[in-house]
């Protein structure tokens, strides 16, 4: 699976950055995730923290890296000698979204500018299966790929000071969910009652890099019902194992 040429760069005295070519693709994602999995299964001599993004992995050591050459050789051997096959314990999560105009306050604008009916936006947005590339920006914010070209829409020139938790938005070629209230420049098309980050859980975020997300259109009434279930802890997000 070593079809990509990787670059190893020191990043400060505690970290090494591994970089893939500067493209966003599911092939790169798979390669990144295989490497990450190999690193997570490797027994480092000291504690390390591993995080990934579209085309990079950052390994941060607890103590100063004494010999960067040795460490890079170790990293390379981990990937070459290890599991090039990505073990598939990835899941497809079905996320209920209410696309009511009450929440989708920018739907009309997108419909007008992109010359597409609101019902068309909803069906395009909820029929795609989006890969989770990584989590960043805010606790529990998923970077999703695969937004249909017809839904690409520029960010707001002036970001809103307050976007509500659970809001689903579109920013340029990306779509995503605000896991918490925050300022934000994305165009809002709906809202989910699902919690994407819960500090009381051992796994604060149910999703991980390599998982997939599909949005399921729900009514305003269903939104209220699911909100109650999420609040009292009785709602289970529908999901299935995904193998591709």
């Amino acid at each position, binding site marked *: 699976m070593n079809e990509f040429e990787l670059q190893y760069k020191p990043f*400060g*005295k505690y970290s090494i950055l591994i970089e893939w070519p500067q493209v966003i693709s599911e092939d790169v994602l798979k390669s990144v995730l295989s490497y990450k999995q190999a690193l997570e299964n490797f027994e480092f001599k000291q504690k390390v923290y591993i995080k990934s993004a579209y085309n990079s992995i950052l390994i941060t050591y607890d103590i100063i890296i004494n010999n960067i050459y040795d460490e890079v050789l170790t990293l390379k051997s981990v990937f070459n000698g290890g599991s090039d096959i990505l073990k598939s314990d990835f899941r497809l999560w079905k996320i209920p979204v209410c696309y009511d105009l009450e929440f989708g306050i920018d739907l009309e604008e997108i419909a007008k500018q992109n010359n597409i009916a609101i019902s068309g936006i909803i069906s395009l947005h909820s029929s795609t299966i989006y890969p989770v590339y990584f989590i960043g*920006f805010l606790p529990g914010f998923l970077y999703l790929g695969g937004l249909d070209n017809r839904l690409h829409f520029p960010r707001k020139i002036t970001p809103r000071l307050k976007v509500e938790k659970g809001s689903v938005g579109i920013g340029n070629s990306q779509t995503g969910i605000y896991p918490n209230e925050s300022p934000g420049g994305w165009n809002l098309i709906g809202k989910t009652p699902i919690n994407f980050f819960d500090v009381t859980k051992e796994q604060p975020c149910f999703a991980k890099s390599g998982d997939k997300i599909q949005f399921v259109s729900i009514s305003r009434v269903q939104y209220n019902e699911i909100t109650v279930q999420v609040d009292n802890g009785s709602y289970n997000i529908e999901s299935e194992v995904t193998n591709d």
Partner: protein
Amino acid sequence: MIKVLHPGFYSSIQDLGRRDYQHLGVPISGAMDQHALKSANAILGNDENCAVLEITMLGPKLEFCCDTVITISGADLQPILNGIKIRLFSANNVKTGDVLSFGRLSKGFRAYLAVSKGFQTEEVLGSKSMYKGLTTTSQLQKGDLIKLIRTSHINNKYAHVKFDGNIDVDIIVVYKGPEFEHLNDKQINQLFGQEFTISKENNRMAYQLDELITNSLNEIITSLVMPGTIQLTPLGKLIILMRDCQTTGGYPRILQLSEYSINVLAQKKVGDKIKFKLEDYQL
């Protein structure tokens, strides 16, 4: 317990932060000046990760509701216990009813108040460091009660040790960042040939600098960043990420501060001058 009579400008509970959840987009957080945090804990014989109060620019007014031992490290905000000035980096016995207040900021920007055995506040994801959206509150409010463990014994062992501060340092040691090689000679000269001024845009997330750098670099595909990463924006602004920074970013990462220099920068305020010094090492 400590009762908050006045919260000061921005005071928050901090320890060494939470590092195990970065892959879920959780900032590391923790004391901005970790050298000062560790010194304060060392003076009291605490574990180095004990939670302290990080005090920014303008000190709070606090009433102690039990006996304990305290020390203050970092910036000099002229701490006053019951009307009498106390020395920084010294262990002080405190009794029920004592009031700690602060005078004018005379040196540095962030002071650290440590109590014996550390503050016993809410722990979220393995850390007591306050962060908006994760912990119940992100800063002290008037009337808050902060839990601590009652102690009356004073450990004098370190009481008169002079701790080496980093307050007067203005050299910021940096290493090459992942996109450093994309800079041209002119940009490199600008970075290392002049002083930079701390902008008014400075907080626990990031410090911006006033002086601009000619920028010809493209944005990068969103990638990984950490405290101490210097980003260069399309408008030529330098942004130095600090302890509460996001885990990912899309601006070129041209330099990376040394751990020591993150602590140095944490004591700088708007208008202060710094100079970058490149420490080169080869891969």
